[in-house]
């Protein structure tokens, strides 16, 4: 493929020679299938390699393609042996003076000027504004045992979380961002705990009762089948638990939160639980 071939090169003035007009966006096959010729030099090609006026790209493989982004083209340009020898003339971008000056003068009377309007959300991103923790709207119940406690809240403001044990002392604490917090591994024994979430000036405290695992609702036998992928099992368990009772929303969240990052269904359910929404129980 010849870009700005000899004919085009002749049209390019000495001032415009060597002007950067784009870059290599991608290519299939290996990079050594493509050769960049510039001013008598042979240069390697890689993604983001700049392309200048007067350059020639040679495609050695009949089935290879290379995609370029050029300043004068709104869409990528694909080059292959199929359009080899078709001159791809891309004159350097022009920088006239009077045309834009006249356009600027005309814009002063407002006829050709359009105001930029943007949609804004009436919330402050990333600052300590108040959030909401519907997950802790009611007292919650968790099973005892070794676990990492997950908390979620609405909004992206950072939050400070503290878990106090039955003796009033802090069991763990930390700062969470982007609406999620994961504690280190904890050994939770049965008892009454208090969890506190502080977002900006808003503080939420809620009782969390930790009960023996046997006191939790029996998991549906369907969810105990071997062969169920773990993310799917946890997702279904979370939905099942949340549907049982509002007291188990936080427990349900523990099952689905660790997978929310990588699994879209888990993310959807996690977000719903964070908003205090839960599947309706059957019947």
């Amino acid at each position, binding site marked *: 493929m010849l870009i700005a071939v000899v004919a085009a090169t002749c049209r390019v003035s000495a001032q415009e020679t060597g002007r*950067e007009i784009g870059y290599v966006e991608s290519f299939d096959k290996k990079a050594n299938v493509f050769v960049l010729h510039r001013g008598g030099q042979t240069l390697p090609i890689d993604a*983001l390699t*700049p392309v200048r006026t007067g350059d020639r790209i040679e495609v050695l493989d009949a089935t290879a393609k290379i995609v370029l982004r050029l300043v004068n083209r709104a869409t990528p340009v694909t080059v292959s042996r199929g359009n080899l020898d078709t001159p791809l003339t891309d004159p350097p971008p022009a*920088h006239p003076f009077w045309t834009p*000056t006249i356009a600027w003068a005309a814009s002063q009377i407002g006829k050709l000027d359009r105001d*930029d309007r943007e949609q804004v959300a009436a919330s402050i991103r*990333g600052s300590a504004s108040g959030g909401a923790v519907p997950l802790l709207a009611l007292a919650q119940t968790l099973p005892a045992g070794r676990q990492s406690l997950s908390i979620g809240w609405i909004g992206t403001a950072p939050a400070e979380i503290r878990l106090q044990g039955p003796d009033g002392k802090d069991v763990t604490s930390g700062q969470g961002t*982007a609406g999620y917090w994961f504690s280190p591994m904890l050994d939770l024994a049965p008892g009454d705990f208090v969890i506190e979430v502080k977002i900006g000036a808003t503080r939420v405290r809620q009782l969390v009762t930790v009960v023996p695992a046997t006191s939790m609702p029996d998991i549906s036998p369907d969810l105990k089948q071997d062969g169920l992928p773990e993310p799917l099992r946890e997702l279904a368990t979370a939905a099942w638990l949340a549907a049982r009772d509002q007291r188990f929303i936080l427990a349900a969240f523990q099952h689905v939160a660790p997978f929310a*990052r990588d699994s879209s269904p888990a993310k959807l359910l996690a977000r719903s639980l964070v908003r205090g929404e839960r599947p309706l129980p059957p019947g």
Partner: protein
Amino acid sequence: MGARECCRVRFSDQGTALRLPGQIRAFRERNPKLFEIAVSILACTLIQIALLASQPSSSRFVRRAADNAADQMIRLSERTNGSLKGSPKFTFFSIDDATYVAWGAHQIAPRGRIKTILERVARSNPTAILLDVDLSYTDSGDASGEASLRDFLGQYPAAAPPLLLVRSLYHDAAPPALPRIRATSYDDQTAAKPNIIWGSPLFERDADGQVRRWRLFVQVCAAEHPAVLPALHLVGAIIARAQIEGEDREQAAASIPRQLASFGADSCARPTERSGEIAPKRGELPAISVDHLDVSSRVLYRADWNASRIALGGDIVSTDGQTPLVAVRPAGLVSSGDSTSPVPGLDGRIAVIGGSFADSGDWYSTPLGRMPGAMLLINAIEALTINGTPREPNVVEAIAISFVIIVMTSVLAAFFRPIVAAPLAAGGIFLIMLISLPLFRSGVVVNLAVPAVGAAFYDLGATLVEKYHQLRSLGWKFVLKPPASIDMEPTTLEASGEGAGEPT
């Protein structure tokens, strides 16, 4: 212009009351137009002197007029950008919408991806790297990414290019108490790295929502002591200037705390106004200083933003050929490559990594339209490097420009109807803007506000005088609408030989 007509009638009606000196009266009778122009020039000049003496830059009205004029110059300069010489070059690795989605649309930029980009860019010999991502927020669900970035920063080689990171601030006491620096989980790893510099990306937003001004530093409270945090664009400009002058970039960056030491506040209780020079004039590069003039903190934007373009601003002319001022590349292309391979085409450019996706929350209105925060930084670094601190013309230039504007508007008003004089005056102002464009591009901002305000005040005054005399002559009938048959332009009646004020 009605006001001028009224003034002429007033003088002829009340000549005996005013008792002008004989010579002036004779001049007025021989050259009424010239007299009118002279009065207009004198009045406008006196008003301008009064405005300047009262420090009008603090007045919202004058400030807005000055801002509007400068905005127009910025737009004209950007549209006529051609070849630039000596300007630093930038590559903006944009976390665009495609990259954001490909990375999982997380609210916190994945730290592992950021680390890959930084690693590749650092191998590519850029002048400096600016990461416009706030690292004070951690994603507890991305522990491995956090750890990899922490390791990268901890092992950042001493020979690597300067790396500029964003430091965010917070208040733990109500203003005017100084803000505090928000800690990050990377502070320990970067503390002993002289080539990793933390800075503030703070700008000022005006009442109309436009970002027109930068801050070169911010006074903060650190461990109960006042301290100074440099602006990222100041650090970038100092490094770029060192590159242009052939000096050591790391040493230049390391000297910034010493240069800013005298700009700290007296205590953590409130900020203290400081002014002075931060970087001296070097060769063709003007000085960078801080003062209290409104114009000195203006960002003279050079490049607008267009998501569909891969090259922004004009072209930089160098020995390597011509290259765009700002080359835009998707960050996703860099993060998906081999982390040990350099990025082509980055030699000698300032690499800026930042977000331009729609949900970033990092969008601002500027005189050149909306742009992501990273472009604000790029424009600020470029302007500060080449123009230094924007300044007004010297006294002689300022007086000459003002005088030209006052004479032009006075002459036009004397000979033409207002409906014709106004667009002609506007055309004259445009011509002055065009002629002063090279001056503007060198960092000199002509303040067209004061002569314009002076002319506006003169017009207002003349109108008030006209109404006053109408009130005196008509009495309570002033509040009534005049009959359509009455000609309210006494000069017409005068010229026709009929008595002034008589209805036709």
